[in-house]
């Protein structure tokens, strides 16, 4: 069948695997967005910038402090998460009682500032980041670099750990309830502001994690965030933010779809996700995993 389409099956499987790697990034990023959106009802426009900061944190740790990749993998998300916490406490916090629109606008403004500062400091051509896992596996149908294999594993583990933490524990209901009526949840005896801050920090840390994870295979550059975040937004619209699990699955799924488009119709690979988004909106406006209002 593949031969009919002019694609040998090996190439087909290889592209599918690569699609999965991309999907891994989409999943972690849309998961972070879903966590933040789920709790603060804020579309975190800075998510892309924070992803970029994660990559740069890795770069800086490596070049100036000699921290190897594996150290950075732990430290960078913490650093980025901490920056997120500062943003939440000093700025976002003052907007919760307002229309959600303002959260979006604030984070959009922050994107300009953060990206601008990094551009100012590091230029735009991007920085090299050594590959910590040289070599690769011969899967029969393709040569899969070890590092890409690791990306898939790492993202699956992080995604499902997060899912478990949020959906299978009491924390999840606190978070969801706090979105609707933070004052009431607090009046039940839960320290909502602290919970909100930590969750935002956690969501941001996820973006940071995706950033370091991407550093060795995508150029570390100040613009890397904006390019990917618009796609992730589309992923989120398709998935519908209905559930944490939905965000994860949609992420992987769209990575695969995009991978296939690259083989069959490469010209459309930058738009395929947007086209799917339009179709989903026409057929199922609330998204694949969203609940109808």
């Amino acid at each position, binding site marked *: 069948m593949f031969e009919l389409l002019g694609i040998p099956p090996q190439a087909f499987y290889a592209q599918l695997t690569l699609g999965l790697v991309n999907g891994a990034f989409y999943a972690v990023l849309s998961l972070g967005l879903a966590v933040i959106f789920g709790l603060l009802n804020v579309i975190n426009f800075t998510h892309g910038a924070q992803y970029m900061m994660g990559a740069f944190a890795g770069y800086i740790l490596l070049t100036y402090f000699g921290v190897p990749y594996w150290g950075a993998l732990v430290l960078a998300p913490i650093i980025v998460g901490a920056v997120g916490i500062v943003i939440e406490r000093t700025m976002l916090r003052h907007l919760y009682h307002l229309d959600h629109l303002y959260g979006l606008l*604030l984070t959009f403004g922050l994107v300009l500032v953060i990206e601008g500062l990094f551009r100012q400091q590091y230029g735009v051509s991007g920085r090299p980041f050594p590959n910590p896992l040289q070599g690769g596996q011969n899967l029969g149908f393709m040569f899969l670099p070890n590092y890409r294999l690791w990306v898939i594993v790492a993202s699956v583990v992080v995604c499902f750990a997060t899912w478990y933490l949020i959906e299978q524990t009491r924390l999840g209901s606190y978070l969801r309830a706090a979105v609707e009526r933070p004052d009431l949840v607090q009046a039940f005896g839960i320290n909502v502001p602290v919970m909100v801050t930590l969750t935002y920090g956690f969501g941001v840390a996820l973006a940071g994690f995706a950033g370091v994870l991407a550093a060795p295979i995508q150029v570390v550059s100040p613009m890397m965030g904006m390019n990917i975040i618009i796609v992730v937004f589309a992923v989120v619209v398709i998935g519908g933010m209905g559930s944490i699990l939905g965000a994860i699955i949609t992420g992987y799924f769209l990575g695969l779809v995009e991978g296939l488009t690259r083989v069959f119709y490469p010209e459309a690979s930058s738009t395929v996700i947007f086209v799917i988004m339009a179709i989903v909106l026409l057929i199922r406006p609330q998204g694949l995993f969203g609940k109808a209002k």
Partner: protein
Amino acid sequence: MTAQNRTLIAFIAFIVIALVAPFFLYPVYLMKILCFALFACAFNLLLGYGGLLSFGHAMFFGGASYFTGHIAKVWGWSPELAILAGTACAALLGLVAGFIAIRRAGIYFAMVTLALAQMFFFFALQAPFTGGEDGIQSIPRGHLFGIINLRNDMALYFFVLAIFTFGFLFIYRVIHSPFGQVLKAIRENEPRAISLGYKTDNYKLITFVISATFAGLAGGTKAIVFQISSLTDVMWQMSGEVVLMTLVGGMGTIFGPIVGALVIVTMQNYLAAFGEWVLIIQGVVFVIVVLAFRKGIVGEFTAWLERRERRKQSAEKEAAAPRVATKPEHA
């Protein structure tokens, strides 16, 4: 002074200033402000009165700019017809995009419009007639109605001013129309509006299309003024810029978008020397406005006027009232 009187006075003042300004200031700069002001007014209709935040308005602005540019340059139509045609294309584009986007509300709406605009960006990048990253260059300004040579900056300026004034008044009328009233109600409580028998999707779609149309009018005009249509006009940064203008000026106010466009365009012009800092400064302005001056310049100003008036009124009342009103503090 009633709000309506204030609007009238402000409008007259604006027209007077606009008529004399080109004799003192660089006309091209003024035209740029007018184009962006119209763009922002169109955007403000959707956001400020319809409650719909579109993060993809560059699609209509830039789309019309491309169509106008192509039609004027390749087909050789006269500028007013080219602009009209470009505007019509934007309206059509608005119809399609709106039809998809209004299926979601709130921040989803913002994301959907952003994504659609990004799709349009890729289209503009790859479609042959747009000239890819070079854009359509050296679009002829041509002769208005075949007579008035628009290569003259002054002549062009008054043409642009006329377009702007038309657009501005039209949008003003939409806001203050029976339609506008329903629109505000939908923004407040959509299910209730439905239960009153309003097909809210139609209202949102019409608003979206009107907004797209005038964004297109602004884009088409800009193409003639600058003789260029480029990818810049369809990029997400452009969508962000118009949000910023509206926000800085004051969303949901009549004159806010004009003031916002003035401030942002001027800032871009004069900060151009600061190079990389322009975007950062813009970002900082964004953040400050969102955190501290949400009403925007015009919004804060009217609020201040109203406060002052109320204070004056209560002072008058007190003065008019007999002594009894001022009871001794300690009984």
